[in-house]
């Protein structure tokens, strides 16, 4: 059943030009960042040769690309998550799913996974971009792996939050603005957390992603991401069930 809903979400996504345009734009921006970093690396390469134990191309080129990708996906997620439930409600199509023999959890998880399949395509393109560097030198695949995992988890958090906010309203635009506001708020949190260096940073999504970005796969961060995702998915299911009970 979940597979049916994932398929439906993906076909709805790729019917519209929005998904294609976003894919192209993300790739364009990241390739540009990639080339700028490559250029910088080539300039300082001779100086790097002189120091002992210099940072490799993965650290200098690929990590910044992934860091940039996290920020771009933070901006892009609201555009894609806004329609998930808000549009269904606006067009009165949620009735089709609710009247069908599927549970609320199937609907919510299916929609979430559908969006995640799209983001997997985005991340796969970034990984392909990174691996192209293999033509010129050796890569640190461990660092690429931790970056990929981190980016996937942080995007899943963005999507879960976006899905929940989309369930609160019947206006996709309001859902988009609300999600963007919440995600930017989390980003601000990150800036504040960097200043204080105290307990605040445990609550910042991007702070946890930075660990992955530096090649550190921390179980605390993984637990935090998973807790964040599950919390918002459960809230979404409860919200839809509540509508059936009280609405």
């Amino acid at each position, binding site marked *: 059943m979940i597979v049916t809903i994932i398929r439906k979400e993906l076909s709805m996504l790729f019917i519209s030009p929005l998904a294609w345009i976003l894919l192209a734009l993300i790739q364009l921006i990241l390739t540009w960042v990639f080339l700028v970093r490559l250029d910088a690396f080539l300039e300082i390469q001779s100086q790097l040769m002189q120091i002992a134990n210099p940072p490799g191309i993965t650290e200098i080129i690929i990590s910044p690309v992934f860091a940039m990708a996290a920020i771009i996906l933070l901006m892009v997620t609201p555009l894609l998550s806004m329609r998930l439930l808000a549009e269904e409600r606006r067009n*009165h199509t949620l009735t*089709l799913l609710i*009247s*069908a*023999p*599927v*549970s609320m959890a199937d609907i919510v998880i299916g929609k979430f996974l559908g969006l995640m399949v799209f983001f997997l395509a985005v991340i796969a393109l970034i990984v392909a971009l990174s691996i192209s560097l293999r033509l010129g030198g050796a890569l640190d695949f461990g660092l690429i792996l931790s970056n990929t995992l981190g980016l996937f988890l942080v995007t899943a958090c963005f999507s879960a939050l976006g899905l929940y906010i989309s369930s609160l309203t019947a206006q996709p635009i309001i859902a988009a603005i609300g999600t963007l506001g919440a995600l930017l708020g989390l980003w601000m949190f990150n800036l504040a957390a960097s200043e204080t260096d105290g307990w605040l940073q445990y609550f910042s999504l991007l702070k946890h992603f930075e660990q992955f970005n530096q090649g550190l796969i921390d179980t605390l961060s993984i637990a935090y991401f998973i807790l964040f995702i599950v919390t918002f998915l459960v809230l979404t299911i409860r919200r839809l069930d509540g509508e*059936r009970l009280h609405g």
Partner: protein
Amino acid sequence: MTNEMATLTLSAQNLCRNYGHHTAVQNVSVELRRGEVLGLLGPNGAGKTTTMRMLTGNLAPSAGSIEICGIDLLDKPREAKLHLGFLPEIPPLYHDMTVDEYLLLAARLHRINKHTLQSVLDNVKQRCGLEVQGRHVIGTLSKGFQQRVGIAQAIIHSPDVIILDEPTVGLDPNQMREIRSLIRDLGVSSSVILSTHILSEVESVCDRVQIMHKGRVVFDQTMAELQQQGTSLEAVFTQLTQ
């Protein structure tokens, strides 16, 4: 007695629904047998749509029980909904999809076997007069065809209970006649609940009629009984709901 029980496809007892302090539906009971078409009548705001949304699991009743083919809708919603087809007041159509894509989605949602998908799709399109429209995008279809797609969606899995909320609203007289004959066809093998404002529609299609007023059922008789008494439906309706 057992035979009678077997033919009972839908049984809802003492349904109540409150919205805050406002009571929309009060002690409504609906029973439906196989091969029966029930007309649900009532002025606007009488609670018809609320009742139908409760019968299809879109809204939880504040009190009461609903059984579909002997399966409790509140206890086992997924099993019970397999036997249900629902066309809401506003058809739940994805305007960006083609008719085929949309109907295949509806079929998959109702767990229709992969191997029979194509034949089920062809069959339902033929029944609803959508043979030519398969590749058309739903958003570009006229209101009448969109309504047919909505009905096709509700009957694609040949459910035992079909619930149609104002299926002929906004259609021209020819389309209305076609939809009515389709509903009569459906009423042969399944049970149909039909809500409408058009009294002549009830007279031509339904076997039994229930009139709702202010959240209660105020009238429940078969068309045959009504004809025997020689009273017109319109007279009954005006008398009870004014």
